[in-house]
């Protein structure tokens, strides 16, 4: 049987607004992914550690606290340190388009803004994984 694509959905920082993270987690599970949800109040270290242990293909970070320009770079740094170049990092939340663009230039796969259709996210992950398989 083919291995399911594994996704870690994480909430980083002190923010407790977990509606989006949970909606995404359940939508991805319904779309056939293996989903691990970190729960609340995680540090970047905790999320990256969990991603390593769970051997995930994708890390999706939900952030509504406004701390995205601090926390995403920290996560990317930790991913680099652990040689996780084959893991896709995604983000979602209240992240203004201009900063979303900056984060994408810095290496976040994509930032999904408010009002995103959850199918758009699963399609993005599938096509990314397919491309990665071709490259490998």
């Amino acid at each position, binding site marked *: 049987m083919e291995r399911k694509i594994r996704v870690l959905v994480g909430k980083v*920082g*002190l*923010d*407790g*607004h*977990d*509606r989006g*993270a*949970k*909606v995404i*987690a*359940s*939508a991805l599970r319904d779309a056939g992914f293996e*989903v691990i*949800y*970190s*729960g*609340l*109040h995680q*540090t970047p270290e905790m999320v990256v550690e969990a991603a390593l242990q769970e051997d995930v293909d994708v890390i999706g970070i939900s952030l509504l*606290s*406004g*701390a995205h*320009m*601090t*926390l995403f770079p920290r996560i990317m740094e930790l991913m680099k340190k652990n040689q996780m170049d084959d893991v896709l990092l995604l983000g979602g939340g*209240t*992240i*203004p*388009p*201009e900063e979303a663009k900056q984060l994408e230039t810095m290496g976040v796969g994509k930032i999904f*803004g*408010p*009002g995103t*259709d*959850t*199918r758009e996210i699963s399609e993005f992950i599938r096509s990314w994984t397919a491309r990665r398989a071709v490259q490998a």
Partner: protein
Amino acid sequence: MSTEKNKFEQERERWERTTAAQYKDRPAKFMTTSSVPINELYGPEDIQHIDYFRDIGFPGEFPYTRGIHANMYRGRLWTMRQFAGFGTAADTNQRFKYLLEHGQTGLSTAFDLPTLMGRDSDDPLAEGEVGVCGVAISSLRDMEILFDGIPLDKVSTSMTINSPAAILLAFYICVAEKQGVPPAKLRGTTQNDILKEYIAQKEFIFPPEPSMKIVVDTIKYCAEHVPEWNTISISGYHIREAGSTAVQELAFTLADGFAYVEAAMAAGMKVDEFAPRLSFFFNSHLDFFEEIAKFRAARRIYARRMRDKYGAKDERSWKLRFHTQTAGCSLTGQQPFNNVVRTAFEALAGVLGGTQSLHTNSLDETWALPTEFAAKIALRTQQIIAHEIGVTNTVDPLAGSYFVEHLTTQMEQQAEEYFQKIDALGGVIPAIKQGFFQREIAAAARQYQHEIEKKERIIVGVNAYVEAEEKLDIPILKIDPKVEKEQIENLKRLRAERDNTKVRQTLDQLKTAAQEDRNLMPPLIECSRAYCTLGEMINVLKGVYGTWREEPVF
């Protein structure tokens, strides 16, 4: 009477067969935001079980379905209380003064996430979040700056703070003391609703039982020393933002309220000693009539329970007073100016529902905290409703509407069903521990998202009337990262300048009080006076009570 009923039924059937049969519906689902189907038409048969005197009554009289005051907004408009807070205490102090100059009548403070979680600005977990979602307050010194030049005997201040509410209240009492204002003159509200934190907003620190004990401490202390203070604002707002339906918001919020009543009574207080100082905070979402019915039902349920179940004798204990905020989660990042319109309708529902105080969201809140410009339009929206469209000229103008009265009763019944479920689980705290609320809310949020993705629910600019290649053309407020640096330096200076012997002494006294299960308010006020920081006080209490982690469910 029965022949009349038969006549209605007969006539209605005839109408359906003849007149209505000639018309076809649009291919749409007709339902509330809670996915409850809505009939094509409501009529006298839908309110035949409602008794005007028993269920509706006169405004200002039991069961207060039509409002808690006899003349409502003819007597006094609602308080226009815009939530504000960002950056340092000095930044927010300026915004407060700006809002007061533009006609706002009460202050409402938003704290940043570290403060909400009881952490100082220099806590490692606070990095990147200092002053971003609200104002950073780590000690009495910050609080002094926040209210500099604002006379605390003249304004009422609402503080959206929960886990560390007792500490922020202690800071406030100390600032007043420095201004020469006695605690008996302080008016305002601490949100102080810890139960909804476990249910929805998730900014909790301690396990539920000691948290409830601290809430009861504040109720007891205020009843004696700060009698005009609203000790808890029992909040459905965040329950709704987390994705609940209107009925869930109504039921869970009231269930929380009754849990506080029971806790304070169990601690030996008489219901009439504290109930007049309880207030509520609801969300106003997009479904206009459902929201109005929710507010009317809330008042009726509360009045009935407070009088009949808890034996309150004081009429003030029967009256549910509430603040309303329009639904942040209903706003879209796409075509943000549409949010002004959404907010106006939501605000109107709050007013028609009889709110005592209102916050209107700003058009840019899907992206960041509001700019001054966006905050002003939001305030102007309230002023237009108050003065230009005539809805404040008469009390509860929708009473007697077949639809509104039917919905009000239906919501009351659905809330009662939830109360029974919660009771069967052993009450609010056991239900929290079993993840009941969290699962119900997550399921409702998922359902709402499904409806949007299946286009059963149309959101303008998101799944219909989309503008391809839309560019966001509004200014967005950015918090300068130097706020964090400045705040950390201020804290360093404070720690160097204060009397650290006094700090250690008062923290020790706090610890002893917690261990001996005494009321924490007096030692917290002593700690505040000695300039202990928020994080220092919380850490002492963590040592006694432990911390809380939730089992993640999705």
